[in-house]
């Protein structure tokens, strides 16, 4: 065939495997339920509904070898296209999901063990029970080859208190550290939810001091006190926790990463990547807070520099110079 097939070879192979993985989960899911709405199945399995629709059209072409119509799996396409309902018949032999692949089991079990290490005692017992059940089913062997020493997320000890206030509908008083201005403030907020976004956990709330919706990073909450005051309807509407959570305009910044800092691209959203000089990578990032960027660059120092914009590069260098001065100008030892 055309050369295009050659180029597309690798992702295509992967796509097929993932499609089969979804189908081998979908059929057992349907089996115990009879018929299911497309959107419900998609939500339960964590798949995009349109993708699931495409997957079902592949399932339709599969079945026992033999070539008779009865050998094939029957997908009710009328119901799928009309009422958006999934009905599958003639697939009883796929009634059970496939066992965990060793790598899948190991990833899940290692995560549970890490959770057991960092969680509060009562949660730890629940995690142990869960692990015991997986072990009894023979699913923990692969994880024995991996050992992780986990460290609790800073601020995670506040979650039970915050969640308790949310459940009871009470306001909170917070001592909060505003990193970009490097200052403390005490404020009263109406909490909505605790949510993880990217690599940090946040409290979403309506803030009386600011007079608007705000998000608070848990590791910057110095103290939280549950008040007796009930929340008003301002706390009522939960916000969409996806994009647009963090308002304000973002600046496109190009950062040059030397090889020891290449991992940054795996952890932070980068919009573009180009090879830079001397084995480095030039990456574009949408940065909402210069303070955040400066912290990231300092963490990997001296392996990251700002290429564009010039103001960010200058202020980063200036802050490094100021820090050096603290070490060299004085004799505080």
């Amino acid at each position, binding site marked *: 065939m055309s050369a295009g097939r050659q180029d597309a070879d690798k992702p295509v192979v992967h796509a097929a495997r993932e499609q089969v993985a979804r189908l081998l989960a979908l059929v057992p899911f349907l089996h115990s339920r009879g018929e299911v709405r497309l959107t419900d199945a998609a939500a339960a399995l964590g798949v995009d509904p349109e993708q699931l629709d495409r997957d079902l059209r592949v399932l339709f072409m599969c079945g026992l070898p033999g070539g008779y119509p009865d050998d094939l799996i029957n997908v009710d396409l009328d119901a799928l296209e009309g009422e958006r309902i999934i009905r599958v018949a003639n697939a009883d032999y796929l009634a059970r999901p496939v*066992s965990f692949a060793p790598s899948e089991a190991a990833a899940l079990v290692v995560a549970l063990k890490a959770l057991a290490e960092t969680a*509060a005692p009562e949660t730890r017992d629940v995690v142990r029970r869960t692990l015991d059940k997986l072990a009894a089913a023979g699913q923990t062997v692969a994880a024995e080859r991996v050992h992780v020493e986990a460290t609790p997320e800073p601020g995670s000890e506040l979650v*039970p208190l915050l969640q308790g206030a949310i459940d009871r509908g009470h306001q909170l008083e917070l001592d909060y550290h505003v990193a970009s201005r490097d200052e403390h403030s005490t404020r009263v907020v109406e909490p909505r939810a605790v949510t993880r976004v990217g690599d940090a956990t946040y409290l979403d709330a309506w803030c009386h001091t600011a007079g608007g919706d705000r998000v608070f990073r848990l590791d910057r909450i110095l103290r939280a006190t549950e008040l007796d005051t009930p929340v008003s309807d301002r706390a009522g509407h939960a916000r969409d926790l996806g994009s647009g959570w963090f308002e304000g305009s973002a600046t496109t910044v190009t950062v040059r990463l030397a090889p020891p800092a290449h991992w940054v691209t795996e*952890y932070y959203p980068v919009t573009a990547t180009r090879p830079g000089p001397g084995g480095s990578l030039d990456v574009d990032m949408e940065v909402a807070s210069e303070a955040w960027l400066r912290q990231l660059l300092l963490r990997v120092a001296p392996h990251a520099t700002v290429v564009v914009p010039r103001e960010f590069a200058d202020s980063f260098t200036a802050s490094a110079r100021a820090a050096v001065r603290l070490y060299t100008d004085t004799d505080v030892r």
Partner: protein
Amino acid sequence: MASDKAERLLNLYIMLLAQTRFVSKQDIRRAHYAEYADNARGDEAFEKAFERDKEDLRELGVVIEVGSLDPFFDDEPGYRISTDTSALPEIRFEADEAAVLGIAARAWEQATLARRTTEAMRKLAAQGVELDAARLDLVPPSLRAEEPAFDALWEATQKRRAVTFDYKRPGEEPHRRRLQPWGLVRSSGRWYVVGYDVDRADERVFRLSRVQGRVSAVGKAGAYDVPPGTDVSAIAADLARRTPDVEATVLVRQGAGVGLRRRADRVEEDVTGPDEESGWDRVVVTGPGSDLASEVLTYGETVVVEAPEDLRSEVLARLRGILEQSEQSEQSERSGAAR
């Protein structure tokens, strides 16, 4: 193209599933690989495609049994998939256990393993486990793997497949190493691989951040056995002793350094600081030496290390590194402009 291949994979799975007898390769080829011509080139292409498909099914968790078709002639292998080994055992989880699974599923920040966990959770959902991610009483620990070598070594460890890679200790030239990996360990914020070093004929531990370039898998999966009694967590405990926690004394500007204050062992307020722009506090924190420098650096001009000396000099050296970088880029800009 994707759906052709997906169809074939699924049909192959169904054909081999729950067979009492082994299915011959010829029958498999006739049923699902009819497009490969009946000549030497076609044979070769079929073999390749069949191998890849089997590998894909194994990646999904399927166990393919290989056996003899005829007990008297074992020249031609046959294949089947048994429900006993390939179906997920029925596990019933209580609501709180399902909630804990949902939280653990968000722990991996490394892309490949985050995907792996999602696949595992989907299989549980398929079995009827209702995963309620809405309630969040606790925060998942963050499991990171920043080292580029992680993916390949994880795969090799899971599959018991030997690897080669270039390994560079500080101040030395890189050396090519051959390793049969036994396990992976994360300790003090770093990943290590433990295994049998083929050239040294002994057990060795390698730090993933010192692996240079690509890790290549060599030979077949399941090519060696991990010695019975190998305890990866005991080796991890050894490592923890080798990279001990450091107690650091730092000066922190008043009103800043929240993260350090939060986990401080001791805080002494209103001490003499390196400047008078603010008041200063003396804070004592404990942490793995390797991470402490990076952590202190993120605070920029609000935290100064007093002791120990090597932490102080590492932080200062890295700050000076930033200034050197900036001078270099200015010089190259100037010389560029002069031309």
